[in-house]
Protein backbone atom coordinates (compact mmCIF):
# COMPACT_ATOMS: atom_id res chain seq x y z
CA UNK A 1 0.00 0.00 0.00
CA UNK A 2 2.26 2.76 -1.17
CA UNK A 3 0.22 5.88 -0.89
CA UNK A 4 0.24 9.26 -2.53
CA UNK A 5 -0.06 10.84 0.89
CA UNK A 6 2.77 13.18 1.64
CA UNK A 7 2.95 13.75 5.36
CA UNK A 8 5.94 15.40 6.94
CA UNK A 9 8.20 12.69 5.60
CA UNK A 10 9.34 11.51 9.01
CA UNK A 11 6.53 9.02 9.54
CA UNK A 12 5.32 6.79 6.77
CA UNK A 13 1.61 6.98 5.93
CA UNK A 14 1.09 3.40 7.01
CA UNK A 15 2.59 4.13 10.42
CA UNK A 16 0.55 7.26 10.97
CA UNK A 17 -2.56 5.34 9.88
CA UNK A 18 -1.85 2.67 12.47
CA UNK A 19 -1.03 5.24 15.16
CA UNK A 20 -4.24 7.14 14.49
CA UNK A 21 -6.31 3.98 14.77
CA UNK A 22 -4.69 3.15 18.08
CA UNK A 23 -5.58 6.65 19.24
CA UNK A 24 -9.20 6.28 18.16
CA UNK A 25 -9.52 2.92 19.91
CA UNK A 26 -7.99 4.47 23.01
CA UNK A 27 -10.53 7.31 23.06
CA UNK A 28 -13.42 4.85 22.71
CA UNK A 29 -12.02 2.79 25.57
CA UNK A 30 -11.58 5.94 27.66
CA UNK A 31 -15.23 6.92 27.15
CA UNK A 32 -16.38 3.45 28.17
CA UNK A 33 -14.07 3.59 31.17
CA UNK A 34 -15.56 6.91 32.34
CA UNK A 35 -19.06 5.45 32.23
CA UNK A 36 -18.12 2.21 33.97
CA UNK A 37 -16.14 4.13 36.58
CA UNK A 38 -19.03 6.44 37.50
CA UNK A 39 -21.59 3.66 37.75
CA UNK A 40 -19.17 1.27 39.42
CA UNK A 41 -18.11 3.86 42.00
CA UNK A 42 -21.69 4.62 43.03
CA UNK A 43 -22.64 0.97 43.25
CA UNK A 44 -19.55 0.03 45.30
CA UNK A 45 -19.97 2.92 47.73
CA UNK A 46 -23.71 2.63 48.13
CA UNK A 47 -24.69 -1.01 47.78
CA UNK A 48 -24.26 -1.70 51.50
CA UNK A 49 -26.92 0.90 52.29
CA UNK A 50 -29.53 -0.50 49.94
CA UNK A 51 -31.64 -3.08 51.75
CA UNK A 52 -35.32 -3.67 52.50
CA UNK A 53 -35.61 -1.17 55.41
CA UNK A 54 -33.94 1.45 53.20
CA UNK A 55 -36.34 0.87 50.32
CA UNK A 56 -39.48 0.55 52.42
CA UNK A 57 -38.73 2.81 55.38
CA UNK A 58 -39.44 6.45 56.07
CA UNK A 59 -36.61 8.97 56.42
CA UNK A 60 -35.44 9.86 59.91
CA UNK A 61 -33.47 13.04 60.80
CA UNK A 62 -34.01 14.70 57.36
CA UNK A 63 -32.83 11.57 55.64
CA UNK A 64 -29.63 10.95 57.61
CA UNK A 65 -31.12 7.64 58.70
CA UNK A 66 -34.10 5.50 57.80
CA UNK A 67 -35.37 4.85 54.30
CA UNK A 68 -36.51 6.65 51.19
CA UNK A 69 -39.93 5.16 50.46
CA UNK A 70 -41.77 8.54 50.30
CA UNK A 71 -39.22 9.81 47.78
CA UNK A 72 -39.58 6.66 45.65
CA UNK A 73 -43.38 6.86 45.75
CA UNK A 74 -43.24 10.60 44.99
CA UNK A 75 -40.95 10.00 42.02
CA UNK A 76 -43.27 7.33 40.61
CA UNK A 77 -46.33 9.60 41.08
CA UNK A 78 -44.53 12.43 39.27
CA UNK A 79 -43.70 10.08 36.40
CA UNK A 80 -47.34 8.97 36.22
CA UNK A 81 -48.57 12.58 35.95
CA UNK A 82 -45.91 13.36 33.35
CA UNK A 83 -46.72 10.27 31.27
CA UNK A 84 -50.47 10.77 31.36
CA UNK A 85 -50.20 14.41 30.30
CA UNK A 86 -47.27 14.30 27.87
CA UNK A 87 -48.17 11.14 25.95
CA UNK A 88 -51.68 12.07 24.68
CA UNK A 89 -50.58 15.60 23.77
CA UNK A 90 -47.26 14.51 22.29
CA UNK A 91 -48.72 11.68 20.22
CA UNK A 92 -51.60 13.91 19.07
CA UNK A 93 -49.09 16.53 17.99
CA UNK A 94 -47.00 13.91 16.18
CA UNK A 95 -50.07 12.58 14.32
CA UNK A 96 -50.96 16.09 13.26
CA UNK A 97 -47.43 16.87 12.08
CA UNK A 98 -46.96 13.55 10.28
CA UNK A 99 -50.42 13.05 8.76
CA UNK A 100 -52.39 16.27 8.57
CA UNK A 101 -50.00 19.18 8.41
CA UNK A 102 -49.28 20.83 5.12
CA UNK A 103 -46.21 22.98 4.70
CA UNK A 104 -47.80 26.18 5.93
CA UNK A 105 -46.75 28.97 8.23
CA UNK A 106 -48.79 27.39 11.03
CA UNK A 107 -46.97 24.06 10.68
CA UNK A 108 -43.58 25.66 10.59
CA UNK A 109 -44.47 27.66 13.70
CA UNK A 110 -45.51 24.45 15.46
CA UNK A 111 -42.27 22.67 14.55
CA UNK A 112 -40.31 25.73 15.62
CA UNK A 113 -42.17 25.67 18.95
CA UNK A 114 -41.19 22.05 19.56
CA UNK A 115 -37.55 22.82 18.81
CA UNK A 116 -37.64 25.89 21.08
CA UNK A 117 -39.16 23.98 23.96
CA UNK A 118 -36.48 21.29 23.62
CA UNK A 119 -33.85 23.99 24.05
CA UNK A 120 -35.25 25.67 27.16
CA UNK A 121 -32.89 25.06 30.12
CA UNK A 122 -34.39 22.97 32.92
CA UNK A 123 -33.94 25.69 35.52
CA UNK A 124 -35.98 28.09 33.36
CA UNK A 125 -38.75 25.49 33.16
CA UNK A 126 -38.49 25.30 36.93
CA UNK A 127 -38.90 29.07 37.29
CA UNK A 128 -41.83 29.00 34.89
CA UNK A 129 -43.45 26.11 36.74
CA UNK A 130 -43.09 28.05 39.98
CA UNK A 131 -44.57 31.29 38.60
CA UNK A 132 -47.32 29.67 36.50
CA UNK A 133 -48.33 26.36 38.10
CA UNK A 134 -47.45 26.90 41.75
CA UNK A 135 -48.44 30.56 42.16
CA UNK A 136 -50.66 31.66 39.25
CA UNK A 137 -52.80 28.52 38.91
CA UNK A 138 -52.58 27.91 42.64
CA UNK A 139 -51.51 24.25 42.47
CA UNK A 140 -48.93 24.93 45.20
CA UNK A 141 -45.85 22.78 45.64
CA UNK A 142 -47.39 19.50 44.59
CA UNK A 143 -47.15 16.33 42.54
CA UNK A 144 -49.43 17.98 40.00
CA UNK A 145 -47.19 21.05 39.56
CA UNK A 146 -44.03 18.94 39.37
CA UNK A 147 -45.50 16.42 36.96
CA UNK A 148 -46.84 19.10 34.63
CA UNK A 149 -43.52 20.98 34.68
CA UNK A 150 -41.75 17.73 33.76
CA UNK A 151 -44.29 17.34 30.96
CA UNK A 152 -42.81 20.45 29.35
CA UNK A 153 -39.39 18.73 29.43
CA UNK A 154 -40.61 15.40 28.02
CA UNK A 155 -43.03 16.76 25.40
CA UNK A 156 -40.56 17.75 22.62
CA UNK A 157 -38.82 14.39 22.84
CA UNK A 158 -42.12 12.47 22.65
CA UNK A 159 -43.32 14.54 19.68
CA UNK A 160 -40.10 13.93 17.76
CA UNK A 161 -39.83 10.19 18.34
CA UNK A 162 -43.55 9.59 17.70
CA UNK A 163 -43.45 11.63 14.52
CA UNK A 164 -40.50 9.59 13.33
CA UNK A 165 -42.28 6.32 14.15
CA UNK A 166 -45.43 7.42 12.30
CA UNK A 167 -43.52 8.68 9.28
CA UNK A 168 -41.70 5.33 9.05
CA UNK A 169 -45.00 3.61 8.15
CA UNK A 170 -44.93 3.28 4.34
CA UNK A 171 -47.25 5.39 2.22
CA UNK A 172 -48.64 2.32 0.42
CA UNK A 173 -50.24 1.08 3.65
CA UNK A 174 -52.20 4.33 3.96
CA UNK A 175 -53.15 4.34 0.30
CA UNK A 176 -54.46 0.80 0.59
CA UNK A 177 -56.71 1.79 3.46
CA UNK A 178 -57.92 4.99 1.80
CA UNK A 179 -58.62 3.11 -1.43
CA UNK A 180 -60.93 0.77 0.49
CA UNK A 181 -63.03 3.79 1.38
CA UNK A 182 -61.81 4.40 4.93
CA UNK A 183 -61.77 8.00 6.15
CA UNK A 184 -58.53 9.71 7.06
CA UNK A 185 -59.02 9.20 10.80
CA UNK A 186 -60.01 5.55 10.34
CA UNK A 187 -56.82 5.06 8.36
CA UNK A 188 -54.70 6.81 10.95
CA UNK A 189 -56.24 5.18 14.00
CA UNK A 190 -56.69 1.61 12.70
CA UNK A 191 -53.85 1.23 10.21
CA UNK A 192 -51.04 3.70 10.79
CA UNK A 193 -51.00 3.97 14.59
CA UNK A 194 -50.95 0.22 15.35
CA UNK A 195 -47.87 -0.10 13.16
CA UNK A 196 -46.19 2.83 14.84
CA UNK A 197 -47.05 1.85 18.43
CA UNK A 198 -43.72 0.20 19.40
CA UNK A 199 -41.78 3.27 18.30
CA UNK A 200 -44.20 5.60 20.09
CA UNK A 201 -44.11 3.63 23.35
CA UNK A 202 -40.31 3.47 23.29
CA UNK A 203 -40.08 7.22 22.72
CA UNK A 204 -42.57 7.99 25.48
CA UNK A 205 -40.77 5.83 28.02
CA UNK A 206 -37.37 7.30 27.17
CA UNK A 207 -38.80 10.84 27.32
CA UNK A 208 -40.11 10.34 30.83
CA UNK A 209 -36.88 8.62 31.84
CA UNK A 210 -34.96 11.70 30.73
CA UNK A 211 -37.30 14.12 32.47
CA UNK A 212 -37.42 12.40 35.85
CA UNK A 213 -33.76 13.13 36.65
CA UNK A 214 -34.27 16.89 36.40
CA UNK A 215 -33.95 18.07 39.97
CA UNK A 216 -33.72 21.68 38.77
CA UNK A 217 -37.33 21.54 37.60
CA UNK A 218 -38.62 19.72 40.66
CA UNK A 219 -37.00 21.87 43.34
CA UNK A 220 -39.28 24.82 42.46
CA UNK A 221 -42.44 22.87 41.70
CA UNK A 222 -42.78 19.61 43.62
CA UNK A 223 -41.65 20.88 47.02
CA UNK A 224 -39.42 19.00 49.42
CA UNK A 225 -41.71 17.26 51.87
CA UNK A 226 -40.44 13.94 53.19
CA UNK A 227 -43.95 12.77 54.13
CA UNK A 228 -45.87 10.18 52.17
CA UNK A 229 -48.14 11.97 49.67
CA UNK A 230 -51.86 11.21 49.86
CA UNK A 231 -53.20 13.27 46.96
CA UNK A 232 -52.12 14.97 43.75
CA UNK A 233 -51.93 18.27 45.58
CA UNK A 234 -49.45 17.06 48.20
CA UNK A 235 -45.82 18.13 47.97
CA UNK A 236 -43.20 15.42 47.52
CA UNK A 237 -39.42 15.34 47.42
CA UNK A 238 -38.38 13.50 44.28
CA UNK A 239 -35.31 11.26 44.45
CA UNK A 240 -32.97 13.55 42.44
CA UNK A 241 -33.74 16.49 44.70
CA UNK A 242 -33.37 14.27 47.77
CA UNK A 243 -29.89 13.29 46.56
CA UNK A 244 -29.00 16.94 46.03
CA UNK A 245 -30.09 17.91 49.54
CA UNK A 246 -28.37 14.94 51.19
CA UNK A 247 -25.09 15.72 49.42
CA UNK A 248 -25.02 19.52 49.35
CA UNK A 249 -26.18 20.03 52.92
CA UNK A 250 -23.78 17.34 54.10
CA UNK A 251 -26.56 15.30 55.72
CA UNK A 252 -25.31 11.87 54.74
CA UNK A 253 -23.13 10.73 51.87
CA UNK A 254 -23.87 7.01 52.29
CA UNK A 255 -27.60 7.71 52.04
CA UNK A 256 -26.95 9.82 48.95
CA UNK A 257 -25.04 6.90 47.36
CA UNK A 258 -27.89 4.55 48.20
CA UNK A 259 -30.49 6.94 46.77
CA UNK A 260 -28.35 7.36 43.64
CA UNK A 261 -28.33 3.59 43.14
CA UNK A 262 -32.12 3.50 43.40
CA UNK A 263 -32.50 6.41 40.96
CA UNK A 264 -30.02 4.85 38.54
CA UNK A 265 -31.84 1.52 38.79
CA UNK A 266 -35.15 3.22 38.02
CA UNK A 267 -33.72 5.01 34.97
CA UNK A 268 -31.97 1.82 33.84
CA UNK A 269 -35.18 -0.20 34.22
CA UNK A 270 -37.00 2.41 32.12
CA UNK A 271 -34.34 2.28 29.39
CA UNK A 272 -34.20 -1.51 29.38
CA UNK A 273 -37.99 -1.63 29.20
CA UNK A 274 -37.88 0.58 26.13
CA UNK A 275 -35.21 -1.59 24.50
CA UNK A 276 -37.20 -4.74 25.30
CA UNK A 277 -40.37 -3.32 23.74
CA UNK A 278 -38.47 -2.43 20.63
CA UNK A 279 -36.80 -5.83 20.44
CA UNK A 280 -40.09 -7.66 21.02
CA UNK A 281 -42.17 -5.89 18.42
CA UNK A 282 -39.28 -5.07 16.18
CA UNK A 283 -39.44 -2.35 13.65
CA UNK A 284 -42.19 -3.38 11.28
CA UNK A 285 -41.17 -0.81 8.80
CA UNK A 286 -37.56 -0.15 9.62
CA UNK A 287 -35.84 2.85 8.21
CA UNK A 288 -32.31 1.55 8.33
Amino acid at each position, binding site marked *: MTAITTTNGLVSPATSDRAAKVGLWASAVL*SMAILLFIIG*YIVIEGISVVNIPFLLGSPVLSGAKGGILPAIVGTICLMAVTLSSAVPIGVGAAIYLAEYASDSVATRTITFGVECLAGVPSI*VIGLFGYAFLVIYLGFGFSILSGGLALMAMALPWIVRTSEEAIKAVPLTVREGSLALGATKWQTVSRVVLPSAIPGIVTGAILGVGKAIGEAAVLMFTAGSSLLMPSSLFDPVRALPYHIYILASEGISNPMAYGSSIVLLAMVLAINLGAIAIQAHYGRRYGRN
Partner: protein
Amino acid sequence: MLAKTREKIIETVLFLSAATAITIVLLILIFLLKEGLPILMKVGVIDFCLGMTWNPIAIAGEPEYGIFPMIMGSIYVAIGSLILAVPLGLACAVFLAEIAPAWARFSLKHAIELLVGIPSVVLGFVGLVLLVPFVRDHFGGCGFSILAGSIVLAVMALPRIISVSDDAIRSVPRAYKEASLALGATHWYTIKKVILPSARSGIIAAVILAMGNSIGETMAVLMVVGSVACLPSPLYDVLDPVRPMTSNIAIEMSYATGDHAQALFATGIVLFVMVGMMTWLSHKVLKSKMGTAR
Protein backbone atom coordinates in the same frame (compact mmCIF):
# COMPACT_ATOMS: atom_id res chain seq x y z
CA MET B 1 -72.28 14.28 6.92
CA LEU B 2 -71.77 13.05 10.46
CA ALA B 3 -68.53 11.34 9.51
CA LYS B 4 -67.28 14.57 7.99
CA THR B 5 -67.96 16.57 11.17
CA ARG B 6 -66.23 13.89 13.18
CA GLU B 7 -63.16 14.08 10.96
CA LYS B 8 -63.12 17.85 11.32
CA ILE B 9 -63.37 17.69 15.13
CA ILE B 10 -60.56 15.14 15.31
CA GLU B 11 -58.33 17.25 13.12
CA THR B 12 -58.98 20.28 15.33
CA VAL B 13 -58.13 18.33 18.49
CA LEU B 14 -54.91 17.08 16.90
CA PHE B 15 -54.03 20.61 15.81
CA LEU B 16 -54.56 21.88 19.34
CA SER B 17 -52.23 19.27 20.81
CA ALA B 18 -49.67 20.14 18.16
CA ALA B 19 -49.92 23.78 19.19
CA THR B 20 -49.28 22.94 22.86
CA ALA B 21 -45.50 23.13 22.60
CA ILE B 22 -45.47 26.62 21.13
CA THR B 23 -48.12 27.67 23.66
CA ILE B 24 -45.89 26.51 26.51
CA VAL B 25 -42.94 28.40 25.03
CA LEU B 26 -45.06 31.56 24.82
CA LEU B 27 -46.30 31.06 28.39
CA ILE B 28 -42.70 30.65 29.56
CA LEU B 29 -41.76 33.90 27.84
CA ILE B 30 -44.79 35.75 29.22
CA PHE B 31 -44.20 34.63 32.79
CA LEU B 32 -40.44 35.25 32.69
CA LEU B 33 -41.08 38.76 31.35
CA LYS B 34 -43.92 39.43 33.76
CA GLU B 35 -41.73 38.55 36.74
CA GLY B 36 -38.38 39.74 35.46
CA LEU B 37 -39.03 42.77 33.29
CA PRO B 38 -39.80 45.28 36.10
CA ILE B 39 -36.35 44.87 37.66
CA LEU B 40 -34.66 44.89 34.25
CA MET B 41 -36.35 48.24 33.53
CA LYS B 42 -35.47 49.58 36.95
CA VAL B 43 -31.80 48.63 36.85
CA GLY B 44 -31.40 48.93 33.07
CA VAL B 45 -30.60 46.00 30.78
CA ILE B 46 -27.00 47.15 30.23
CA ASP B 47 -26.29 47.70 33.92
CA PHE B 48 -27.92 44.38 34.80
CA CYS B 49 -25.93 42.37 32.27
CA LEU B 50 -22.62 44.20 32.67
CA GLY B 51 -22.80 45.10 36.36
CA MET B 52 -19.94 43.62 38.36
CA THR B 53 -21.58 43.39 41.79
CA TRP B 54 -24.33 41.03 42.89
CA ASN B 55 -25.50 42.14 46.29
CA PRO B 56 -29.25 41.54 46.44
CA ILE B 57 -29.65 41.69 50.22
CA ALA B 58 -27.76 44.83 51.15
CA ILE B 59 -27.30 45.34 54.87
CA ALA B 60 -26.33 48.96 54.32
CA GLY B 61 -27.07 50.97 51.21
CA GLU B 62 -28.82 50.01 47.98
CA PRO B 63 -28.92 46.40 46.80
CA GLU B 64 -27.00 45.88 43.56
CA TYR B 65 -27.98 43.57 40.73
CA GLY B 66 -25.14 42.97 38.29
CA ILE B 67 -24.79 39.52 36.76
CA PHE B 68 -21.73 39.97 34.55
CA PRO B 69 -19.56 37.67 36.70
CA MET B 70 -22.24 34.99 36.44
CA ILE B 71 -22.61 35.32 32.67
CA MET B 72 -18.85 34.88 32.48
CA GLY B 73 -19.07 31.97 34.94
CA SER B 74 -21.50 30.19 32.63
CA ILE B 75 -19.25 30.84 29.64
CA TYR B 76 -16.11 29.70 31.50
CA VAL B 77 -17.48 26.29 32.44
CA ALA B 78 -19.19 25.80 29.08
CA ILE B 79 -16.02 26.52 27.10
CA GLY B 80 -13.96 24.47 29.54
CA SER B 81 -16.28 21.51 29.02
CA LEU B 82 -15.99 21.85 25.24
CA ILE B 83 -12.19 21.93 25.36
CA LEU B 84 -12.30 18.60 27.19
CA ALA B 85 -15.25 16.92 25.50
CA VAL B 86 -14.89 17.89 21.82
CA PRO B 87 -11.57 16.13 21.03
CA LEU B 88 -12.61 12.97 22.88
CA GLY B 89 -16.14 13.04 21.53
CA LEU B 90 -15.01 13.59 17.98
CA ALA B 91 -12.48 10.77 18.23
CA CYS B 92 -15.20 8.46 19.52
CA ALA B 93 -17.53 9.50 16.70
CA VAL B 94 -14.86 8.79 14.07
CA PHE B 95 -14.21 5.49 15.79
CA LEU B 96 -17.92 4.60 15.75
CA ALA B 97 -18.53 5.63 12.17
CA GLU B 98 -15.32 4.48 10.52
CA ILE B 99 -13.30 1.85 12.28
CA ALA B 100 -15.39 0.16 14.96
CA PRO B 101 -16.25 -3.49 14.33
CA ALA B 102 -19.93 -4.32 14.86
CA TRP B 103 -19.56 -5.51 18.45
CA ALA B 104 -17.61 -2.41 19.49
CA ARG B 105 -20.12 -0.13 17.81
CA PHE B 106 -22.99 -1.94 19.51
CA SER B 107 -21.48 -1.70 23.00
CA LEU B 108 -20.27 1.88 22.68
CA LYS B 109 -23.66 3.02 21.33
CA HIS B 110 -25.46 1.47 24.27
CA ALA B 111 -22.89 2.80 26.72
CA ILE B 112 -23.54 6.28 25.36
CA GLU B 113 -27.29 5.84 25.82
CA LEU B 114 -26.63 4.82 29.42
CA LEU B 115 -24.39 7.84 29.96
CA VAL B 116 -27.18 10.13 28.72
CA GLY B 117 -29.52 8.42 31.17
CA ILE B 118 -27.44 9.20 34.28
CA PRO B 119 -29.32 12.04 36.01
CA SER B 120 -27.27 15.22 36.25
CA VAL B 121 -27.61 15.33 40.03
CA VAL B 122 -25.86 11.93 40.26
CA LEU B 123 -22.98 13.19 38.11
CA GLY B 124 -22.78 16.31 40.27
CA PHE B 125 -22.70 14.16 43.39
CA VAL B 126 -19.87 12.00 42.08
CA GLY B 127 -18.09 15.23 41.12
CA LEU B 128 -18.57 16.55 44.64
CA VAL B 129 -17.19 13.51 46.45
CA LEU B 130 -14.44 12.53 43.98
CA LEU B 131 -13.47 15.36 41.70
CA VAL B 132 -13.47 18.26 44.15
CA PRO B 133 -11.06 16.60 46.61
CA PHE B 134 -8.95 15.38 43.68
CA VAL B 135 -8.60 18.90 42.25
CA ARG B 136 -7.85 20.29 45.71
CA ASP B 137 -5.12 17.73 46.40
CA HIS B 138 -3.45 17.66 42.99
CA PHE B 139 -3.91 21.13 41.54
CA GLY B 140 -4.46 23.35 44.56
CA GLY B 141 -7.15 25.85 45.40
CA CYS B 142 -10.26 24.87 47.31
CA GLY B 143 -11.33 22.21 44.83
CA PHE B 144 -14.64 23.84 43.98
CA SER B 145 -13.54 25.35 40.71
CA ILE B 146 -14.06 26.10 37.04
CA LEU B 147 -11.94 23.02 36.33
CA ALA B 148 -14.20 20.68 38.33
CA GLY B 149 -17.31 22.19 36.75
CA SER B 150 -15.85 21.83 33.27
CA ILE B 151 -14.99 18.17 33.81
CA VAL B 152 -18.47 17.27 35.07
CA LEU B 153 -20.07 19.19 32.19
CA ALA B 154 -17.71 17.48 29.75
CA VAL B 155 -18.99 14.08 30.89
CA MET B 156 -22.53 15.33 30.27
CA ALA B 157 -21.68 16.83 26.87
CA LEU B 158 -19.71 13.80 25.65
CA PRO B 159 -22.61 11.53 24.61
CA ARG B 160 -24.41 14.33 22.79
CA ILE B 161 -21.30 15.32 20.85
CA ILE B 162 -20.59 11.69 19.98
CA SER B 163 -24.03 10.83 18.65
CA VAL B 164 -24.57 14.01 16.61
CA SER B 165 -21.04 13.88 15.12
CA ASP B 166 -21.49 10.18 14.40
CA ASP B 167 -24.62 11.00 12.39
CA ALA B 168 -22.79 13.81 10.57
CA ILE B 169 -19.87 11.54 9.63
CA ARG B 170 -22.19 8.76 8.46
CA SER B 171 -24.10 11.10 6.21
CA VAL B 172 -20.97 11.88 4.20
CA PRO B 173 -21.54 10.23 0.79
CA ARG B 174 -19.72 6.91 0.45
CA ALA B 175 -18.36 7.90 -2.94
CA TYR B 176 -16.12 10.58 -1.38
CA LYS B 177 -14.44 8.01 0.81
CA GLU B 178 -14.11 5.42 -1.92
CA ALA B 179 -12.63 7.95 -4.34
CA SER B 180 -9.99 8.91 -1.80
CA LEU B 181 -9.14 5.30 -0.96
CA ALA B 182 -8.99 4.43 -4.66
CA LEU B 183 -6.37 7.15 -5.12
CA GLY B 184 -4.22 5.29 -2.65
CA ALA B 185 -4.74 7.43 0.43
CA THR B 186 -4.64 5.59 3.74
CA HIS B 187 -7.82 5.27 5.79
CA TRP B 188 -6.63 7.81 8.35
CA TYR B 189 -5.59 10.28 5.64
CA THR B 190 -9.07 9.88 4.09
CA ILE B 191 -10.73 10.52 7.45
CA LYS B 192 -8.59 13.58 8.07
CA LYS B 193 -8.70 15.18 4.65
CA VAL B 194 -12.01 14.02 3.14
CA ILE B 195 -14.54 12.75 5.66
CA LEU B 196 -14.08 15.22 8.51
CA PRO B 197 -14.08 18.31 6.26
CA SER B 198 -17.28 17.05 4.58
CA ALA B 199 -18.95 16.49 7.94
CA ARG B 200 -17.72 19.82 9.27
CA SER B 201 -21.02 21.70 9.50
CA GLY B 202 -22.75 18.82 11.30
CA ILE B 203 -19.92 18.65 13.79
CA ILE B 204 -19.91 22.41 14.36
CA ALA B 205 -23.67 22.29 14.95
CA ALA B 206 -23.12 19.55 17.53
CA VAL B 207 -20.49 21.62 19.33
CA ILE B 208 -22.70 24.74 19.44
CA LEU B 209 -25.62 22.69 20.72
CA ALA B 210 -23.40 21.15 23.40
CA MET B 211 -22.32 24.64 24.46
CA GLY B 212 -25.98 25.69 24.81
CA ASN B 213 -26.70 22.60 26.87
CA SER B 214 -23.70 23.26 29.11
CA ILE B 215 -24.76 26.85 29.74
CA GLY B 216 -28.24 25.66 30.65
CA GLU B 217 -27.18 22.80 32.92
CA THR B 218 -27.90 23.33 36.60
CA MET B 219 -27.52 20.56 39.17
CA ALA B 220 -24.26 18.96 38.06
CA VAL B 221 -22.48 22.31 37.91
CA LEU B 222 -24.04 23.72 41.04
CA MET B 223 -22.48 21.03 43.22
CA VAL B 224 -18.88 21.49 42.07
CA VAL B 225 -18.21 25.09 40.98
CA GLY B 226 -18.25 26.70 44.43
CA SER B 227 -20.82 29.37 43.58
CA VAL B 228 -18.81 32.49 44.38
CA ALA B 229 -20.33 35.39 42.46
CA CYS B 230 -17.03 36.97 41.35
CA LEU B 231 -14.80 36.74 38.32
CA PRO B 232 -11.79 34.49 38.82
CA SER B 233 -8.59 36.40 39.55
CA PRO B 234 -6.40 36.35 37.58
CA LEU B 235 -8.91 35.87 34.78
CA TYR B 236 -7.31 32.65 33.53
CA ASP B 237 -7.26 30.91 36.92
CA VAL B 238 -9.37 27.82 36.34
CA LEU B 239 -8.89 26.72 39.95
CA ASP B 240 -11.02 29.61 41.20
CA PRO B 241 -14.69 29.08 41.99
CA VAL B 242 -17.34 30.86 39.90
CA ARG B 243 -21.12 31.05 39.96
CA PRO B 244 -22.89 30.34 36.66
CA MET B 245 -26.33 31.89 36.09
CA THR B 246 -28.12 28.59 36.63
CA SER B 247 -26.52 28.12 40.05
CA ASN B 248 -27.49 31.65 41.01
CA ILE B 249 -31.16 30.90 40.37
CA ALA B 250 -31.07 27.49 42.02
CA ILE B 251 -29.36 28.71 45.19
CA GLU B 252 -31.24 31.92 45.87
CA MET B 253 -34.75 31.25 44.60
CA SER B 254 -35.73 29.41 47.76
CA TYR B 255 -35.44 32.50 49.95
CA ALA B 256 -35.67 35.43 47.54
CA THR B 257 -38.52 37.93 47.75
CA GLY B 258 -39.49 41.17 46.01
CA ASP B 259 -36.85 42.77 43.77
CA HIS B 260 -34.44 39.95 44.56
CA ALA B 261 -36.82 37.28 43.21
CA GLN B 262 -37.50 39.46 40.18
CA ALA B 263 -33.76 39.75 39.56
CA LEU B 264 -33.55 35.94 39.53
CA PHE B 265 -36.32 35.77 36.94
CA ALA B 266 -34.40 38.40 34.96
CA THR B 267 -31.33 36.11 35.19
CA GLY B 268 -33.61 33.43 33.74
CA ILE B 269 -34.45 35.75 30.83
CA VAL B 270 -30.76 36.29 30.05
CA LEU B 271 -30.16 32.54 30.27
CA PHE B 272 -33.14 31.82 28.03
CA VAL B 273 -31.89 34.30 25.42
CA MET B 274 -28.32 32.94 25.48
CA VAL B 275 -29.34 29.30 25.14
CA GLY B 276 -31.94 30.23 22.53
CA MET B 277 -29.24 31.93 20.47
CA MET B 278 -27.07 28.81 20.62
CA THR B 279 -29.96 26.58 19.50
CA TRP B 280 -30.79 28.96 16.65
CA LEU B 281 -27.15 29.16 15.58
CA SER B 282 -26.74 25.39 15.48
CA HIS B 283 -29.88 25.00 13.35
CA LYS B 284 -28.57 27.70 11.07
CA VAL B 285 -25.29 25.85 10.60
CA LEU B 286 -27.11 22.57 9.93
CA LYS B 287 -29.42 24.20 7.39
CA SER B 288 -26.49 25.71 5.49
CA LYS B 289 -25.06 22.21 5.15
CA MET B 290 -28.30 20.92 3.63
CA GLY B 291 -27.94 23.58 0.96
CA THR B 292 -24.39 22.84 -0.09
CA ALA B 293 -23.35 19.26 0.58
CA ARG B 294 -26.36 17.52 -0.94
